């Protein structure tokens, strides 16, 4: 900012009473904001002190460097003086500062603009939360209906989407997920085997570790671990992609072009994940059994062929298809959660992060709920 004179003296603030009952505020030294701002309390004290002040003026003859620190001090002093109906005279201030004060006052404060930070009654908040919940449920059902219509149009061959997008999504949530699914499934297999080995070894029944791992992975853990991986990986990615498209108005552009964003964006993603989840689940099952075999061979000294034969005998097609069915259901839940949260994203960049987080949480929570329901139904059906 403008340097009126070079000085090393720090912020100086003195007061003097003028002959016409005026208060002269003498500003001297360097008024840079990194020195801190003097309290306006001193000004209040001087204005309120008897005899009554009729006018406030400034003397800046010894003023050195100044910046926004001085501007802020003068602006606050001006507000205080005006609140006490004491006229203020800026003629003693540097020209540049006067211009900035005029600029700051050029647009008067919008009366209803200031945000009122007041606590609202509990009933209001509960009511508002209930309305929000109802609206959220309605939006969710509308979205589900939109997806159902989009699927109907796809089977009729009337849906508008790009086949290449679907292939890219299939690759993204299929082949590109192999690495992480491999690592997690193998480790889950070893953990299951460890847990079983410690107990079964006591009875000399370590061979049943193969049964434990095979049934555990194929029936439940393969599908569940794949779902958790895909919720964190793909569900979050869907929400972030669609959320960003919302922020940059790309979704609006599709709508105004007469293209359904659900058909164009949601359909390929849901189809891709629903197709890939059962396959990833089978892959996860195999890797889990291999993880179990690693423990069986290394720790329990079982022959690999013995372990795999036992695992093979323990696995039934019912268990395998049951796991694949569960994986498909999880796929639907994760894809819809990701896309729904992306569509519900606000217009700011932080809301994209929120959308991704909510997609993962929704996907996992509803996945676990679905797991419980399916376990109950499978039991009821004797599967």
């Amino acid at each position, binding site marked *: 900012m403008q340097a009126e004179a070079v000085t090393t003296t720090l912020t100086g603030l003195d007061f003097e009473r003028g002959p016409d009952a005026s208060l002269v505020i003498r500003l001297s030294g360097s008024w840079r904001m990194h020195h801190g701002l003097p309290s306006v309390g001193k000004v209040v004290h001087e204005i309120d002190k008897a005899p009554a002040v009729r006018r406030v003026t400034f003397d800046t003859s010894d003023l050195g460097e100044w910046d926004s620190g001085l501007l802020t001090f003068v602006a606050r002093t001006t507000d205080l003086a005006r609140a006490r109906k004491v006229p203020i005279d800026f003629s003693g201030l540097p020209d540049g500062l006067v211009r900035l004060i005029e600029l700051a006052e050029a*647009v008067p404060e919008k009366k209803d603009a200031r945000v009122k930070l007041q606590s609202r009654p509990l009933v209001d908040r509960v009511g508002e939360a209930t309305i929000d919940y109802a609206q959220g449920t309605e939006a969710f059902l509308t979205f589900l209906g939109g997806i159902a219509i989009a699927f109907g149009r796809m089977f009729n061959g009337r849906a508008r989407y790009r086949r290449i997008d679907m292939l890219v999504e299939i690759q993204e949530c299929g082949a590109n997920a192999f690495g992480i699914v491999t690592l997690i499934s193998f480790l889950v297999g070893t953990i299951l085997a460890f847990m079983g080995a410690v107990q079964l070894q006591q009875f000399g029944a370590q061979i049943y570790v193969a049964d434990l791992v095979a049934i555990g992975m194929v029936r439940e853990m393969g599908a569940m671990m794949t779902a958790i991986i895909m919720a964190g990986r793909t569900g979050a990615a869907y929400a972030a992609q669609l959320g960003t498209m919302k922020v940059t108005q790309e979704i609006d552009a599709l709508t105004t072009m007469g293209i359904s964003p659900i058909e164009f964006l949601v359909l390929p993603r849901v189809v891709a994940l629903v197709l890939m989840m059962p396959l990833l689940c089978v892959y996860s099952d195999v890797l889990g059994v291999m993880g179990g075999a690693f423990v069986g061979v290394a720790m329990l000294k079982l022959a690999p062929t013995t372990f795999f034969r036992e695992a093979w005998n323990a696995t039934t097609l019912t268990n395998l298809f049951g796991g694949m069915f569960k994986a498909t259901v999880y796929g639907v839940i994760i894809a819809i959660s990701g896309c729904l949260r992306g569509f519900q994203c606000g217009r700011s960049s932080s809301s994209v992060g929120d959308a991704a987080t909510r997609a993962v949480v929704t996907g996992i929570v509803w996945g676990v709920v679905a797991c419980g329901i399916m376990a109950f139904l499978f039991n009821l059906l004797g599967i």
Partner: protein
Amino acid sequence: MAFGDFVVMRDLNFTVRRGDVFVIMGGSGCGKSTLLNHMIGLLEPATGEILYGDFNFTKAPPEQRERMLRRIGVLYQGGALWSSMTLAENVGLPLEEFTDLSPREIRAIASIKLALVGLRGFEDYYPSQISGGMQKRAGLARAMALDPEVLFFDEPSAGLDPISSRLLDDLILELRDGLGATVVVVSHELPSIFAIANNSVFLDAETRTMIASGDPKELLAHPPDPKVHRFLTRGADERHPG
């Protein structure tokens, strides 16, 4: 200036004087914003140097560059306000990071900066709650937070109606006079260029270099190159009747 092997601009040599309102102009896609990004350190020149007075910005070690960056302020095309923060927090963040001021003092300074751009009373609004023009002005308040010596504007008029654009031009001049800052503007809005600039450089996409520099009004009166004349007159001579 280059991206890999692709040279965007070469042989750029110009000086911005203290107190100038300097415009980087040229057609769409000629590299105006790229040049600005080099001047503010977001991109590194392939060869050559950028000097602020005697300070070699290009060759300086990172901590010295950071200190220099505190002496400049940038208004990005879309305002680039942090959406999770209120306007007062947006303006206050640089003060919080680079000064020892108390939260109350920071709030007071943020309020006065917002008042300077006509946003008195909007301290607790989030960027998503205000219009595009207001976001741009709030971005300007943030750019001014640390009383920069040089203010950079990337297409300040983009997305604004003509009246808002005029008001922003006036504001730029007022702030230049009030703060005593130097202003560098990327623009291809002719009314703005003629209203505020007293110095400029003209970039040409075809030859990939600057083909003119100086006061835009002078360049209009005595164009050194037909392309500059065509640009500054909006190609008026090329219009065909009907």
